[in-house]
């Protein structure tokens, strides 16, 4: 029993620290809740350190095959924690500026991180589902917490109802799988499917699979299960949008791999077809509708949908290197998305969200350096070499080509060209338009520093994509 406990120490400690943070928050009397915030940041650092210390290099199961620790889970957990650390920092700056700091925000954030970590190392259908619910519930309430904002309440409501619908579908799919195989752990399902099933059973498996794919697609925001994304991105306060658009996507990747690869690799030909449809629709709808947006949060929402389409390409290839490509893509996406929303926070001020495209007008004049950071971010999102976003697209496209889906790759390239248009429009606004106001941008030194580092990471990773790719490959080997 003891060695099993050891594997879950990071999760356990995080749970304890989150609970302590909850108690500590009642004693944090200052308006800005500095104490809670610092404690949460330190908690994440502790968890990161613990993941380094206790995680084995090998694949190990615990708790009757409900928990797995393998290289992928370790890498994903680390990335999730690091990204959340930065995200919380941006969020804190935002909440502080808008004088709306609540300790619960960070406590719930920690629980969300816990949910994501559970999803990353879930080895049974049950843990995946519970991890997902823990994450989602935290997210719903993080949005709803901004009670004074009508749009936030509305966004929370929509997210909650649609999320419940999607969870229901996922759960239904899970129950089908359980009904057919009689086991809950993915290893068991995998060996069941591998042992050969007759046609009747296969139909039942595919039937369950459809519902599971729907659940995954909802979480990722793939068309036609994307409808929540634009509304929730736009309606939520930027601090929460930032969180939703980054770390949970990585958890969604973990969920995808666990369910489709660890559990149902034998149904590859079936889910491949489904994902191709989702991917094509996502790339088309996301890229094209993004063009007509004037709200940058909404535009980034459609851009997310488009990115998900690309991300799915790697999964579609159905090989370990393809999965690594997708992992690379989603990590890179999270970093880029973080920076882009960070820029919106950077430009905003009390009582004012800088979420219109026009807010970026003439930024090059107001602040050349941050205009440059935004330029890097947008170029990277558009996939222009040598930035890291290019490599992300490159790896997934390479994988689908290797699997013989040349037409799919060609379509992807066409849509990436279309997509470049709306990213470039922002650059045009920043560099070639006159600013509406020449006010100096007010932002703390820490925010400036973190934003700069975020931009530089994208630039530098572009020159050493091999390192990150090697990490992803080793995680999935």
């Amino acid at each position, binding site marked *: 029993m003891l060695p099993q406990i050891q594997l879950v120490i990071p999760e356990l400690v995080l749970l304890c620290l989150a609970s302590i943070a909850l108690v500590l928050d009642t004693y944090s009397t200052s308006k800005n809740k500095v104490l809670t915030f610092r404690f949460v940041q330190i908690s994440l650092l502790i968890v990161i350190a613990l993941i380094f210390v206790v995680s084995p290099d090998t694949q190990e199961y615990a708790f009757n095959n409900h928990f797995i620790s393998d290289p992928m889970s370790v890498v994903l957990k680390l990335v999730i924690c690091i990204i959340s650390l930065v995200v919380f920092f941006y969020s804190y700056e935002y909440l502080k500026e808008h004088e709306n700091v609540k300790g619960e925000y960070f406590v719930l954030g920690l629980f969300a991180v816990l949910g994501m970590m559970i999803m990353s190392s879930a080895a049974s259908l049950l843990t995946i589902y519970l991890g997902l619910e823990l994450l989602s519930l935290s997210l719903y309430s993080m949005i709803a917490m901004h009670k004074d904002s009508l749009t936030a309440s509305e966004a929370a409501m929509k997210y909650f109802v649609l999320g419940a619908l999607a969870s229901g*579908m996922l759960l239904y799919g899970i129950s089908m799988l359980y009904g057919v195989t009689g086991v809950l752990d993915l290893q068991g399902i995998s060996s069941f499917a591998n042992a050969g099933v007759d046609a009747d059973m296969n139909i039942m498996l595919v039937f369950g699979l459809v519902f599971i794919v*729907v659940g995954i697609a909802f979480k990722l925001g793939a068309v036609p299960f994307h409808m929540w994304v634009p509304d929730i991105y736009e309606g939520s306060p930027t601090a929460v949008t930032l969180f939703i658009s980054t770390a949970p996507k990585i958890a969604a990747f973990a969920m995808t791999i666990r369910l489709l690869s660890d559990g149902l690799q034998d149904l590859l030909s*079936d889910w491949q077809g489904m994902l191709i449809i989702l991917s094509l629709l996502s790339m088309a709808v996301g890229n*094209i509708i993004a063009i007509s947006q004037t709200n940058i949060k909404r535009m980034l929402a459609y851009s997310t949908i488009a990115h998900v389409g690309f991300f799915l390409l790697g999964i579609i290839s159905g090989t370990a290197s393809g999965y690594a490509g997708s992992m690379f893509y989603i990590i890179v996406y999270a970093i880029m998305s973080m920076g882009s929303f960070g820029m919106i926070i950077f430009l905003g001020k009390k009582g004012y969200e800088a979420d219109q495209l026009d807010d970026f007008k003439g930024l090059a004049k107001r602040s050349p350096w941050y205009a440059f950071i935004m330029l890097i971010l947008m170029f990277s999102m558009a996939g222009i*070499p040598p930035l890291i976003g290019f490599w992300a697209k490159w790896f997934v496209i390479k994988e689908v080509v290797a699997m013989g889906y040349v037409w799919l790759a060609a379509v992807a390239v066409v849509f990436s060209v279309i997509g470049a*248009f709306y990213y470039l429009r922002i650059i045009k606004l920043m560099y070639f338009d006159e600013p509406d106001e020449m006010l100096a941008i007010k932002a703390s030194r820490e925010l400036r520093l973190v934003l700069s580092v975020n931009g530089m990471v994208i630039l530098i990773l572009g020159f050493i994509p091999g390192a990150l790719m090697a990490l992803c490959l080793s995680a999935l080997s």
Partner: protein
Amino acid sequence: MSSDMESIYLAIVLAPLAGSLIAGLFGKLIGRSGAHWVTIIGVGISSVLSMYAFKDLMFDGGEIFNRSIYTWLTTGGISFEIGFMVDQLTVTMMVVVSFVSWMIHIYTIGYMHDDPGYQRFFSYISLFTFAMLMLVMSNNFLQLFFGWEAVGLVSYLLIGFWFKRESAIFANLKAFLVNRIGDFGFLLGIAAVLMTFNTLDYNQVFAMAPDYANSTISIISGTDWSLMSVICICLFIGAMGKSAQVPLHVWLPDSMEGPTPISALIHAATMVTAGIFMVARMSPLFELSETALTFVLVIGSITAFFMGLLGLVQNDIKRVVAYSTLSQLGYMTVALGVSAYSAAIFHLVTHAFFKALLFLAAGSVIMAMHHEQDMRKMGGLYRYMPITWVTSLIGSLALIGFPGTAGFYSKDAIIEAVHHSSLPFANWAYIAVLSGVFITALYSFRLFFLVFHGKERMDRNTWEHLKESPAVVTVPLSVLAIPSVILGVFLIGPMLFGDYFTAAIHVQANHDVLGVLGEDYHGVWSFTLHAFQAAPVYLALTGVAVAWLLYIKFPEIPAKIANRFKWIHQILINKYGLDDFNQLVFAGGARKTGSLLWQIGDVKIIDGVIVDGTASAIRWFSGKIRNIQTGHLYDYAFTMIIGLLLLLAVFVHHILG
């Protein structure tokens, strides 16, 4: 030896980059003069070293350099590398690029004297020089693409340099979008190369290419396409964007909104020739596909002829030069099409000098005229600007191919090469390039006479301030005038008929038109004399004479002609309607499709067609927006359920049969 060369090549590339970075990042610190000194020194170093490399390779028997400098990433057996391949072709380009750029840097001191973005400008043009050098020195497709995109990006920044002008913004967006179309083809071409050969290294690709000469691929199932044709045409589409070939030429005339040094550097001498260079570099691939070569030939001849015609009706001095550039690029492309790669490069080199010269002269005129660009408001300037006048005359003579000037040799070689080609459409191309000679002469001297001779039509204030430009302007003019005259004499022998390019350019025996020409070649003087027995020279002289008649002797005639043939004039003024067409279809199209799809997709289909099925759905929808908890959520949930149903239908029930 070659390890020395490696550091020299690195210095050639990095010196302009360093200059650019210093001027860009510390512009305020080092001040205006600091910015121009540091960049001029940077580009100067690279220019001098390029000449050294040229000497080394040409005269001292240096070896061809081909090595990777830095491995970026290795993935799945393909490695992405930064590397240099310096052979005769490369070194020629290096000298042209760095030297012209150097001159333009100096000239810029005068031209941009009062501009608030002085440091930024120097930083950009140095950056451009760096990117262009990376492009030409590359030894693999990836770096080629990288340089390709980088020069595009800088040119985009430079066209929009005066971003307060609405038209400049429009022009730079246009340039960027049109180039994206080209780049898309280029990228597809590179992807096809990667798929076929599984490597991006030039030498490996070229070595393997002949094995694939007859392979086919089926893009649409059931049809077989020659693989090499597909690759080459895709690559050439990229070249069409950069080198402004019809129908992707529309950005170049508009790009004249940028400052004149940029027009000279990017849109005449270097960037636009990147496409020409690329095709010459890819000669081992293009040689394998006659289809692709024919395509190149047709596009080139269309560009050469029709773009020249447009130059006849323009009144903006820079636009005339721009259309002349388009037409000359057409000539180079024609040369590529008939496999006379050396002739194309030769024309590229001479053109770089005399066209830069013409642009800088135009800039000098524009400065004297207080940024007035309309030729109808000039005239008689030879009295006030003697140096500009002389150098313009030299440039114009070189452009029309007056015997003895550099342009004569290169253009004549192209015309002769087309004459000997056996490709389909070569006859038409021959007619196009021949009549092009007349047209070139006509519009060049129309410009020359309108600007420098005839009545002085400027307003009084301008007239009072007319004076020759300062030395930083006239010195580069004079320096560029020299090669515009003499370069042809020196280069024609070795470049076209010698074995200078043997290692760099590959021509199949049955395409070797220059070889045929070479049999009749007996030294440069007999070539020159021979020209007097051929049509081009007389066509050019006729063109000059007609220009003189129309614009000096009987200046009222052009208006009458324009009136009589109004419809032709109108077509030319409208640039064959291509601009409007693009405007309507491409630029507007993407945006409209986006909002259309948004409206149709999200609003109409889901709310209207599926839910309500009537036109009143939209009104209903806007009413619902206020009551969002019900209206929207239903829709969203419906969409999800319909999606689920579709997936079920496709993936579960098809199994049921």
